[in-house]
């Protein structure tokens, strides 16, 4: 495979446009920046990003074949965000996100076959086929959905953080939301309560620059979403969300803040989705050149691949990862297609706990 990345763009605390790299605010302290992940950790992050990419491509394919219905929001392009953050999360931490959730579930170590089978609406899906792409959960992995209402996951995340604090279990909640969601009123209700009660929650704003077809500049007054917690005294950092190492570093800082009992933290991840908002979005609100430029110059997987090769990993090692991932995804798709549709009797189950 050709190496498409010209230069390694990695720089902690730097934004995608680069011009804001001078911003002082929120730059993580030097000591943390220098704390580089081990080669194994980087290889694992690479593996997870490739897994998400291939999984989403396969999901797109199955959608094209009519095997996945309804809305299907792919995470392609944004892989570094969830992988970087979850790479420093601990087992007791909890995660909640929007409908663009496949990547988050894989990064939370949920089973690819179970997720894919939910996408195809089959009995072996995480929700027995009753939730679909946007609504999946795993109590076991502390993944609390998958929410179809824009920003509903934000107070829910704060509630999970409330439970972490109430139980004194040391956990932190990661509540992921989009740039569009960041304009919802309930987000600010939540910021207020989270700060007031020092809840251990990280609000991860995945700024992929569009909420459906509306660019941030057309939707948000004051485009620095990291600053949206200022009035509540919540620290906010803007991070190059296409650079998994920068994401990881920022997440370490945020987690340390929350675990120290200092309350919530905002991470604005500047990122980009390559595909349409959902499968049926022709994405006419942006140019192909814009998408290509992101892909060619900022691709999170290519960037990490570059770093890995420069630091001594060899092509064969990465190829081996690629092959293994391909098999996982292929198996997941086979599993998801072989699994039967839920029994008709499932219609009336799981409505009320008896």
């Amino acid at each position, binding site marked *: 495979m050709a190496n498409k990345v010209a230069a390694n763009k990695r720089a902690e605390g730097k934004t995608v446009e680069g011009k804001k790299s001078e911003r002082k605010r929120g730059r993580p302290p030097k000591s943390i920046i220098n704390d580089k992940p081990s080669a194994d950790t980087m290889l694992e992050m690479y593996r997870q990003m490739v897994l998400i990419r291939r999984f989403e491509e396969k999901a797109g394919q199955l959608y094209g074949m009519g095997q996945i219905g309804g809305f299907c929001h792919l995470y392609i392009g944004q892989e570094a965000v969830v992988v970087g953050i979850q790479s420093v999360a601990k087992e007791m931490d909890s995660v909640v996100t929007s409908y663009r959730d496949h990547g988050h579930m894989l990064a939370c170590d949920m089973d690819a076959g179970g997720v894919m089978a939910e996408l195809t609406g089959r009995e072996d899906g995480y*929700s027995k086929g009753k*939730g679909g792409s946007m609504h999946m959960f795993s109590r076991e992995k502390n993944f*609390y959905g998958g929410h179809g209402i824009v920003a509903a996951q934000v107070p829910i995340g704060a509630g999970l953080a409330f439970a972490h604090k109430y139980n004194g279990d040391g956990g932190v909640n990661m509540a992921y939301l989009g740039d569009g969601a960041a304009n919802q009123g309930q987000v600010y*209700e939540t910021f207020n309560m989270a700060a007031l009660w020092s809840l251990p929650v990280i609000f991860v704003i995945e700024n992929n620059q569009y909420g459906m077809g509306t660019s941030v500049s057309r939707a948000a007054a004051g485009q620095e979403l990291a600053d949206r917690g200022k009035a509540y005294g919540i620290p906010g950092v803007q991070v190059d969300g296409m650079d998994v190492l920068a994401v990881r570093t920022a997440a370490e800082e945020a987690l340390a803040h929350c675990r120290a009992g200092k309350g919530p933290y905002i991470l604005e991840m500047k990122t980009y989705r390559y595909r349409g908002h959902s499968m049926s979005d022709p994405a006419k609100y942006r140019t192909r050149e814009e998408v290509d430029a992101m892909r060619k110059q900022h691709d999170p997987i290519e960037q990490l691949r570059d770093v890995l090769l420069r630091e001594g990993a060899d092509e064969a090692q990465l190829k081996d990862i690629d092959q293994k991932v391909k098999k996982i995804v292929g198996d997941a798709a086979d599993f998801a297609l072989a699994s039967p549709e839920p029994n008709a009797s499932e219609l009336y189950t799981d409505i009320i706990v008896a």
Partner: protein
Amino acid sequence: MAIEIKMPALSPTMTEGRLSRWLVSQGDSVASGDVIAEIETDKATMEVEAIDEGTIGAIHIGEGTDGVAVGAVIATLLEEGETEVPPISQPVSGATTPVAEAPTQAAPNQETASAVAAAAPIAASVAAPAAAPVGAEPDWQGSTRTMTVREALRDAMAEEMRQDERIFVMGEEVAEYQGAYKVTQGLLDEFSAKRVIDTPITEHGFAGLGVGAAFGDLRPIIEFMTFNFSMQAIDHIINSAAKTLYMSGGQMGCPIVFRGPNGAASRVAAQHSQCYASWYAHCPGLKVVSPWSAADAKGLLKSAIRDPNPVIFLENEVMYGQSFEVPEADDWVVPIGRANIVRQGADVTITAFSIMVGKALEAAEALSSIGIEAEVIDLRSLRPLDTETILTSVKKTGRMISCEEGFPFAGIGAELAMQVMDGAFDYLDAPVMRVTGKDVPMPYAANLETLALPQAQDIIEAGKAVCYRAGGL
């Protein structure tokens, strides 16, 4: 191995499309993500991206072709080293969901057509399960104590909080102020600020936060200062709390109680006087209760707090100060889902809940003076509804009047009338009648407010009407 590129489905409703343009030709090499074609769907023109890398071995459907079925092979991609284009496989009908494979796709001969007809509404024909049996209500013979509904509610919370550390109360003015209506009086002192929490005025936010805490295995009691303000939070109540168990295939319930005063208070006008019983009772995944007496308020609230489901607990401001006898039991629990016959009678069944039970009893006494004996049923639970108790009574009396404070249209009474028609049609001697609030926003003026609210006199009139009695009372 050569890869077949198929006509993709690019919207939830697309079954075929126009292949408007090829951006590659035979022999071109493509990488994953390259745009290879444009197709027009039923909604828009979309770009088709290559998923795999390789060389275009053949293009099977030329540009400008209309009506290309989803799933038809449109090109073949050769992998490194391949030169031979293998024959294409049969086009599959892709867009249809692969339901129980065989009969739905088969040729439409007589036999399969009827099989399809039989098979198609399969989901709809699955019978809804019968309501789960509800635990019997303890028949109390022991001593009782007179207390107000307000005290009974407070005691219920306090008793449960002593038993289960996971329970906390959250809402506006519930802690230091001791409750806007003093229902949480004394709880802060006993349970500390960790478990009795004053919130900012932010219903949407704290309802969602409560749901998250319930997901995190706590047992929140969320107080709305009144249910009017729960409209700001209804998204979380329905979409986040009520539906998650189903959407998670049974993995994640939401054990939470939303409680507070519901219905009309006095002279507070339209935005602060409304009954939300039918709004919440409409939704699967919720339980909805609305007690009248202090004993039920206590016993049902304890059940609601223990219930693993989201429970809407509708109180009534006017009732808070009314006193009733409450059993002096160590653990007085009233099961959710069971109505209570508060007055026996053979001539007409009157159903009511919350404050309307008192008015129904008042009307029943008046009707008795003209020889009509009404059976008054306190519904207590609206979801699940104790249909059995209602039907048994209607089969005996042959007449029913439904009372509620809410609006008539699509209200609880509409549902009850339907239930009676379903289960006791042949027993009816008169059409079911309903006594409800008027179909208007609550007016402020004292006289208009009285006119807008259902009164005991309205129930008396209805009683006479269903018994075909004329004359004044």
